[in-house]
């Protein structure tokens, strides 16, 4: 290998670091320019950013506290309807709390559930998937069979069962959703590992004397992370809907302003206060729609193999 | 039988039109085999699809006529055109593995062709429930399969395409193409996807069909040697135009166009020992951005000023036409 790269030994390390940083930066730049040119993905990303900002600055944006209210404002109509006031744009809920404020605070729950459940699922999925896919053997057997077993339950039914068993609450909810949520990531990572393992670049890394685990982390993982990101985004919308569904059934989060619980509360008043269910649902739909749009866009950008059309 | 006059077909893309076929005129007599030879992307496959009037969107026929037995088929309404397809004009495709529909039995796919062209008349009042008709059609299919050399056709009839080998699939496709006794067979590189030994068998089969039934064949191929062996006449295409056309012997032994000459020199011959191969430099030009004058001019070894003007096709000897500035 003489003459290919003439770098002084002590400079070599920093040279490679610079090279890596440069490549990394270029990859991000390319990703950014592709995202901007993909209207669906861009729209999704912008809407999600707005939602995240609203969640962070909820105390400043919301005109009232989430639990603040007087019975005078009970079932108060939205501002543009007869009887509404501009002080409560979306009107009041069944306990006289400001609906808009509760919706804004509700973003926190939905986003938090989405990020935490998907985050844990991805971590577990990658961890188990990499080990199972690379080493196979008894570990792979046990985890795969357990995953198959979990998949025999429809997701919502499983989550309802778990929530019924453990009781409502944020921690229990996250537990219930991730208990089954990791399986899909596990399957994805494991499958990709199995196919990537046989490819030339892994062989090349082996020949240059890298150890197995080093190969997995430094060579294979970057090649499968794109598929994981795409799946994670799409699953996040799903998890948010799951949380709302559980809250709607009274099994999710009850002590805080969660959209699902608000929609449930509104259902009992649908004859004379349609807005209590409608507006939280509209926000929920918008958020999930934005996440799915971003997910589809990311799939086009990052992982063209997964494209379903054209 | 088939007469093509000044045919031009462009793909109307958003930017510039892609000139897939330009000003092509040719004739095919009853029972004749014409070889259409050229590099990939020169418009020879598009030619066949144009004759079938099956050019994919955004392809459009700009000028010219295609006459079959004196009738211009380009003006025919869709229903009449569909009646011609598969019955008067049939086509064989390049890749038999992807051309048969994977979910239907091979025999049934051949039978479908008989059915839509009503090769067996029905006496029943409910034609699609006519068992006797179906049996007769099946017999015809079996006979066809036997003719094209598919062994144990009785059981093969009920098999699916993936159970066939590539050569057998192409035989089945030939049986399908022949089912309605067409006058004209369009073969689009019928042997490219097959093994060499199978290639020879398939070509022999096509030759036999031509001789026994008098079916006219247009054979599209990039293999000049194959065309030389098989065809009565050869037309050499370059960038959507015919640059040389004539009897096989004339074209092969006495090529007049520099491109034909180049093609002949880039084929290794077994007979002459130690012959230097002379590849044609460069690649086929972008059909959306053709050079002025002769399209071959940028790659031509004998290029000169006159090549930049428009070049017409001229008849040098009887039936030997060339499109080159040298002969203008």
């Amino acid at each position, binding site marked *: 290998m003489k003459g290919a790269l003439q770098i002084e030994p002590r400079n070599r390390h920093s040279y490679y670091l610079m090279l890596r940083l440069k490549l990394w930066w270029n990859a991000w730049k390319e990703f950014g320019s592709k995202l901007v040119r993909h209207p669906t993905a861009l729209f999704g990303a912008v809407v999600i950013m707005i939602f995240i900002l609203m969640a962070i600055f909820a105390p400043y944006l919301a005109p009232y506290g989430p639990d603040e209210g007087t019975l005078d404002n009970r079932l108060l109509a939205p501002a543009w309807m007869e009887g509404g006031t501009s002080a409560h744009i979306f009107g009041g809920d069944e306990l006289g709390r400001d609906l808009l404020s509760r919706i804004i605070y509700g973003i926190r729950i939905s986003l938090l559930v989405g990020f935490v459940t998907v985050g844990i699922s991805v971590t577990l999925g990658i961890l188990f998937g990499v080990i199972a896919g690379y080493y196979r053997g008894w570990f792979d057997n046990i985890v795969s069979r357990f995953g198959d077993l979990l998949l*025999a339950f429809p997701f919502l039914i499983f989550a309802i069962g778990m929530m019924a068993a453990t009781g409502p609450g944020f921690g229990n909810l996250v537990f219930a959703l991730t208990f089954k949520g990791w399986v899909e990531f596990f399957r994805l990572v494991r499958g990709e590992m199995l196919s990537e393992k046989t490819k030339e670049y892994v062989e090349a890394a082996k020949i240059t004397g890298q150890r197995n685990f080093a190969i997995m982390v430094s060579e294979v993982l970057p090649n499968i992370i794109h598929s994981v990101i795409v799946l994670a985004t799409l699953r996040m919308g799903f998890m948010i809907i799951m949380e709302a569904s559980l809250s709607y059934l009274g099994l999710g989060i009850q002590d805080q302003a969660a959209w699902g619980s608000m929609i449930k509360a509104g259902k009992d008043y649908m004859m004379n206060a349609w807005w209590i269910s409608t507006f939280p649902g509209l926000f929920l739909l918008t958020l999930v*729609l934005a996440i799915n749009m971003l997910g*589809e866009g990311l799939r086009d950008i990052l992982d063209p193999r997964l494209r379903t059309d*054209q | 039988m088939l007469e093509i006059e000044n045919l031009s077909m462009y793909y109307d893309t958003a930017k510039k039109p892609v000139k897939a076929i330009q000003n092509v005129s040719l004739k095919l007599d009853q029972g004749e085999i014409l070889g259409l030879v050229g590099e990939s992307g020169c418009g020879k496959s598009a030619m066949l699809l144009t004759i079938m009037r099956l050019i994919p969107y955004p392809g459009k026929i700009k000028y010219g006529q295609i006459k079959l037995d004196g009738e211009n088929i380009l003006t025919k309404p869709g229903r009449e055109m569909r009646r011609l397809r598969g019955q008067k004009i049939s*086509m064989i495709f390049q890749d038999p593995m992807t051309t048969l529909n994977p979910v239907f039995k091979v025999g049934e796919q051949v039978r479908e062709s008989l059915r839509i062209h009503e090769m067996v008349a029905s006496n029943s009042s409910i034609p699609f429930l006519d068992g006797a008709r179906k049996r007769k059609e099946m017999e015809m299919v079996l006979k066809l399969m036997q003719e094209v050399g598919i062994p144990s056709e009785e059981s093969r009839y009920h098999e699916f395409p993936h159970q066939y080998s590539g050569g057998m699939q192409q035989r089945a*496709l030939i049986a399908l193409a022949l089912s309605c006794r067409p006058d004209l067979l369009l073969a689009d590189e019928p042997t490219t996807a097959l093994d060499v030994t199978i290639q020879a068998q398939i070509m022999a089969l096509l030759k036999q069909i031509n001789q026994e039934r008098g079916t006219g064949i247009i054979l599209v191929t990039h293999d000049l040697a194959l065309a030389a062996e098989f065809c009565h006449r050869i037309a050499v295409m370059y960038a959507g135009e015919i640059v040389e056309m004539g009897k096989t012997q004339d074209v092969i032994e006495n090529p007049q166009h520099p491109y034909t000459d180049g093609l002949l020199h880039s084929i290794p011959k077994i007979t002459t020992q130690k012959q230097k191969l002379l590849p044609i430099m460069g690649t086929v030009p972008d059909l959306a951005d053709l050079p002025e004058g002769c399209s071959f001019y940028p790659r031509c070894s004998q290029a000169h000023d006159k090549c930049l003007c428009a070049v017409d096709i001229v008849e040098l000897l009887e039936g030997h036409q060339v499109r080159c500035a040298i002969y203008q």
Partner: protein
Amino acid sequence: MRFVKILERVLIAIPIMLGVAIIVFMFMRLTPGDPVDLMMGDSGSVTQEEEEALREEFNLDKPLYVQMGYFLSGMARGDLGNSFTRRQPVADIIWQTLPATIELALAATVLALLIAMPIGIISAVRQYSVLDRVAMGGSFLGISMPNFWLGIVLILIFAVKLKMFPVAGRIDYGMELHYTTGFYVIDSILTGNWPAFVSSVKHLFLPAVTLGAAMAAIVARVIRSSMLEVLRQDYVILARAKGLNEFRVVVKHALRNALIPTVTVVGIQIGVLLGGNMIVETVFGWPGLGRLAVDAIFSRDYPLVQGVVMIYALTYVIANLVVDVLYTYINPKISL
């Protein structure tokens, strides 16, 4: 040969069902909350003896593994135990509610396929047309739509505001109908009871739309994308070259191939449908298995929850089995 393979699949399903049963059982027992307390809740003061008797009646005084043994051996005999709250065999309760759920699920599936198939096909054939864009936008909305909210909005618009459909239930209150199959739509046709038929169809419509919306959205997308893939294939050109008209090319030669991936997706959707069924039945007060399960969970009716969840899992496993078998019929390359 096919029979042996199917039998093999069925045998593989048995350990999965056993695993499901054990998981369900453990879940319900490891949870806080005493079912006897809940049962006693309404009846005011109860003596120690009465409570003991109840515990004994339902084997709650035995150790867990004994209870599990009872449960599993009972299940093997088709006996799902007795409901705590209704004092009725669980199997009977499930049997009574099953027709309502099947009626709704079938209506939703049929509705979804009837809408999704033509839309998916036309969207593919006329790719990038206005119809394609509108349909794909709509299906994207359908995928992102929380179905309980869709149900509420549909009730708000069509039941509360426009009064075109009833708010909840399966049939108008007090409507007379002779029940034979338990499928109200079929029962009313069988007995020629026109008003009951109209009423039951009207009751069925909104829940079926709500339940079928997501399925329709996904199936339309899958059919479109697989049709786009298939329409590019050589065999479609061959079909045209044979002289077939465009309708036959699309519907016979292309669609038949596009159905292969579609069937797989429909199979996966059955699981979504089962989960959605719980929600939709709750929203519309539909007296089916889903609402039964939700009620049972809240009243800690262990045997009933176990029974219903087992039925759900069984349905899911059977549905996947059916899809696998169906797959072998439409894809000749796969022989199970």
